[in-house]
């Protein structure tokens, strides 16, 4: 093991991952002009004409509609993912170029990995005769109620302008998926929905992120504030904001220290110097085991963009790496984005709701381990070490103080509009099995809600199709010296990354079919549509573990 050096370093991975949470594709400029104009694009030798309408509703949410000249009657309504409400200064790693230093409110009309991809998807659909629409909500962060209202307004407005719109299908990704689903359940104005790696409830998502954040703070740096940021008491009161900025710096320091420690000694990496509360007995356990434990207790995937937990360098270390090291590295890579959501999103939610929304005063973390204690026994450095770490996280440990929420803030976050599972139109979900931001368990929760709605007579069966996107069987690559190489691109099935254009167009086709017929495609038809993509599968029996907050 001594010769195994993670020489590429994890810092680069962490940097990329940390940015990825909020790095959704953003059009280069907002729509300034209001009204409709004729425009188009060249497709080969053909000019595809469409009408582009932009404007804002009475709340200030911007919208965009694209209506093709040869319209088939169906409009795709797209909801984008979460955007940071909190404006950040330029910070190395997180916001080096100031992208997140200015408000973002431009509407988006189609999903895609990049703005260029979004345009490709948009043009492809326009060529097929579909209209497109999307809103740029006036409030960012967890703004589901505002987004739903903006979308409703947009639909009504679009139908006013274009009375030939006979079908509206809704799709969205991440928080946009949540918005799309909620919209489709609540107003009876959507004919079918497709939700891409859809977010769970606000309470569950923030609880997940805060679990990670609290364990990082408790194990690795007790000076991190994490919760209960000072609420502004006067205009220009930046105390809470500065606390947030301070936390970001501390977390980056911890992540950097963990990366460096694992790079130096993957088998027995040392704890960061900032872990001042951890006793020497705890620090005798390789810190990678603590990282893995955090992931398991939070419900985080043990596969990431780079690490598959399924391979190792050829030779004697193959099994050891895959068994004991790779899952921890995967969690570390995944943790970076969860922490971004935790610290920045949590601050935003606290400001929105007026206090701490997280409460782990009664959480029994030890009971969460379950079978994972056996499955990952090697990565956790054995039962004895695991018991020691769990004891440290116990609520009776005075140096691991728990967080108590503000009741009114919890009520506020719980009241954010959410889907209920009362599905009334054909609905498709597509989710990565190793998504660290919106883990697959959120879709399982939706399935359970839907099943309950059917049982209660609130929904009819046969309206939900779950499509899963899994990683390749093995994908971690190693150099000739046996060191893992940082992934240079997006590994399908991981990372909360947007799907490929081909995948998106398959979903669009299924969605359009559902919207047109009022029925889901059969499983056989859906499987046929996906057959060229080995990473996509449909299995009604696939049942990912629920997130802990949802159990």
């Amino acid at each position, binding site marked *: 093991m001594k010769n195994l050096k993670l020489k590429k370093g994890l810092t680069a991975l962490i940097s990329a991952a940390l940015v990825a949470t909020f790095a959704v594709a953003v059009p280069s400029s907002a729509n300034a002009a209001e009204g409709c104009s004729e425009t188009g694009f060249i497709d080969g030798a053909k000019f595809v004409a469409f009408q582009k309408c932009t404007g804002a*509703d009475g*709340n200030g949410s911007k919208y965009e509609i694209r209506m093709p000249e040869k319209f088939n009657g169906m409009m795709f309504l797209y909801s984008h993912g979460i955007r940071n409400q909190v404006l950040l200064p330029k910070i190395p790693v997180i916001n080096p170029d100031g992208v997140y230093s200015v408000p973002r409110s431009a509407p988006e009309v189609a999903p895609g990995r990049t703005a260029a991809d979004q345009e490709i998807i948009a043009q492809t659909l326009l060529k097929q005769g579909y209209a497109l629409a999307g809103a740029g909500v006036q409030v960012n962060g967890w703004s589901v109620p505002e987004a739903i209202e903006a979308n*409703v*307004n947009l639909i*009504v*407005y679009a*139908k*006013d302008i274009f009375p030939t719109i006979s079908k509206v299908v809704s799709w969205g990704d991440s928080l946009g998926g949540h918005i799309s689903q909620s919209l489709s359940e609540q*107003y*009876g*104005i*959507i*004919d079918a929905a497709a939700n891409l790696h859809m977010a769970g409830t606000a309470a569950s998502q923030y609880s997940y992120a805060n679990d990670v954040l609290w364990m990082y703070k408790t194990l690795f740096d007790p000076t991190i504030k994490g919760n209960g940021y000072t609420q502004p008491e006067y205009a220009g009161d930046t105390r809470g904001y500065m606390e947030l900025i301070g936390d970001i710096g501390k977390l980056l320091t911890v992540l950097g220290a963990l990366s460096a420690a694992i790079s130096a000694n993957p088998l027995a990496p040392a704890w960061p110097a900032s872990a001042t509360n951890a006793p020497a007995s705890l620090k005798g356990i390789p810190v990678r085991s603590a990282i893995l434990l955090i992931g398991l207790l939070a419900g985080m995937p*043990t*596969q990431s963009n780079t690490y*598959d*937990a*399924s*391979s*190792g360098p050829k030779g*004697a270390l*193959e*099994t*050891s790496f*895959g*068994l*004991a090291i790779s*899952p921890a590295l995967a969690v570390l890579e995944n943790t970076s984005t969860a922490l971004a959501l935790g610290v920045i999103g949590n601050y935003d939610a606290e400001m929105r709701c007026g206090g701490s929304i997280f409460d782990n005063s009664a959480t029994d973390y030890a009971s969460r381990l379950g*079978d994972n204690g*056996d*499955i*990952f*026994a*090697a990565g*956790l*450095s*054995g*039962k*004895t*070490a695991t018991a020691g770490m769990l004891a440290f996280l116990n609520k009776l440990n005075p140096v691991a103080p728990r967080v108590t929420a503000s009741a009114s803030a919890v009520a506020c976050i719980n009241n954010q509009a959410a889907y209920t599972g009362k599905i*009334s*139109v*054909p609905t498709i979900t597509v989710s990565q099995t190793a998504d660290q931001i919106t883990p697959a368990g959120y879709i399982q929760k939706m399935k359970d809600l839907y099943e309950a709605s059917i049982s209660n007579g609130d929904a*009819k*069966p*046969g*309206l939900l199709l779950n499509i899963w996107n*899994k990683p390749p*069987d*093995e994908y971690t690559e190693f150099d000739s010296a046996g060191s893992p190489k940082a992934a240079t691109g997006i590994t399908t099935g991981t990372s909360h990354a947007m799907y490929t254009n081909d995948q998106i167009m398959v979903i669009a086709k299924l969605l359009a079919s559902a919207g047109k017929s*009022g*029925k*889901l495609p*059969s499983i*056989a038809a859906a499987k046929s549509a996906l057959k060229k993509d080995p990473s996509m*599968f449909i*299995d009604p*029996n*696939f*049942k990912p573990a629920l997130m802990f907050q949802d159990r």
Partner: protein
Amino acid sequence: MIRNTRMKRFSIVSAVVAAGAMVLSIMPAQAADPGVTATEIKLGVSTPLTGSAGLAYGKVPGAMKAYFDYINANGGVYGRKIKLVVRDDKYLPTLAATQTTNLILKDNVFALVGALGTATHSKAYTAASLAAKNVPDLFVNTGFSGFGNIAKYPTTFTVLPSYAMEAKIMSKFIKEKFAGQAVALVAQDDEFGVDGVNGFKAGGLTIASTTLYPTSSITDARAKALLTGLSAIPGKPVVVLFGTTDVTALIFKAAESLDLVSKFTWIAGSVGGDANTLLALGVKSTTIDGAIAASFFPDAKDTSDEYVSQFMKINEKYNKGISFDNIVLQGMNSAMLTVQALRAAGKNLTRTGLINAVQNKGAKFASAGRVPLNYSATSHVGYNGYWFGQLNAKGELKPYGGTLSIFTTDSAAGAVEASTFTRPAMPKNGIPTNS
């Protein structure tokens, strides 16, 4: 803000349209269980072929396939040929989950046979939704007592006696044969080792020193440090090695290096005591000479055993180039159990029928095991006993004290009892017709 009246009007209209669109999707009719045709039964196994565990256990699927090929050459099962799809999981839980899912969703196997490992199969069972799909999960090579939980693993049948059983029986053996000698236990710090620790406790064995080590953590230096510490125990302590073969080998080699082989009475558990593997991993023959090991099988070198001799013939023809050893014996035995189960399930083969067949008839299946099979509707654990033998320099395991003594027990508080079990005869030519 767009006017509310307009929204309301539109919502009502849309609601009517949407309500009209709410049509039940038509689900496909219940299809027959996958993996079975008029001419073929497709089975699958996820098991380590490569990596460190592959060195020790990689022969299992090849041995199974060889036996199935032999059966196929002799007419198959009710005219159906058995096809075994093998996927390499490297003994890694995540990969085992992936490969098992692949067996179900991509390969469309009818049933799983001979999966290996506790952590691997535990994760795989859930990930591949084996319970929900009612996939028979036969003859899993693990002794983890947790798989005996039928509510949690309703379709799983393990083949090995549980580690708790082994520890209980070993406790009795040590107390009777080595009374007065201090006992040191060296075990994996996971469910395997914990099962053992619980078994030794239930068996009432006094242990002077317990060392629990995380999997993959034992190095040459750590093994030497461990033995140096244990050498301070006065007299000739009994050292129980309750781990995998690679760790047994590391400790034996450390003992060689420290000249401590003769200091201890060595007892290796069934998982880590395979002589051929130990020799292959570089342990000296003089080191294993005299070491004690637990087993529920005949010794693979015992050509006088009718099962061994028949399986050796099959191996020679259908598994060319592969030396016959305990691992091959284990693989072929599981394959023979599988054939009997398929026969017992009848011509109209279904997953439910196969599960019922093992539950109802599995205890009577012919097998190489020297101890009873224990399958029933309330027990999905296979063998339930052990015998102890002593290795010689050739790697042969001979009954300790010259007489084969079999003991049986359960995984809980039941007594350890001497068994008079008489093994069913090997089916003629190794082709079952009894089920």
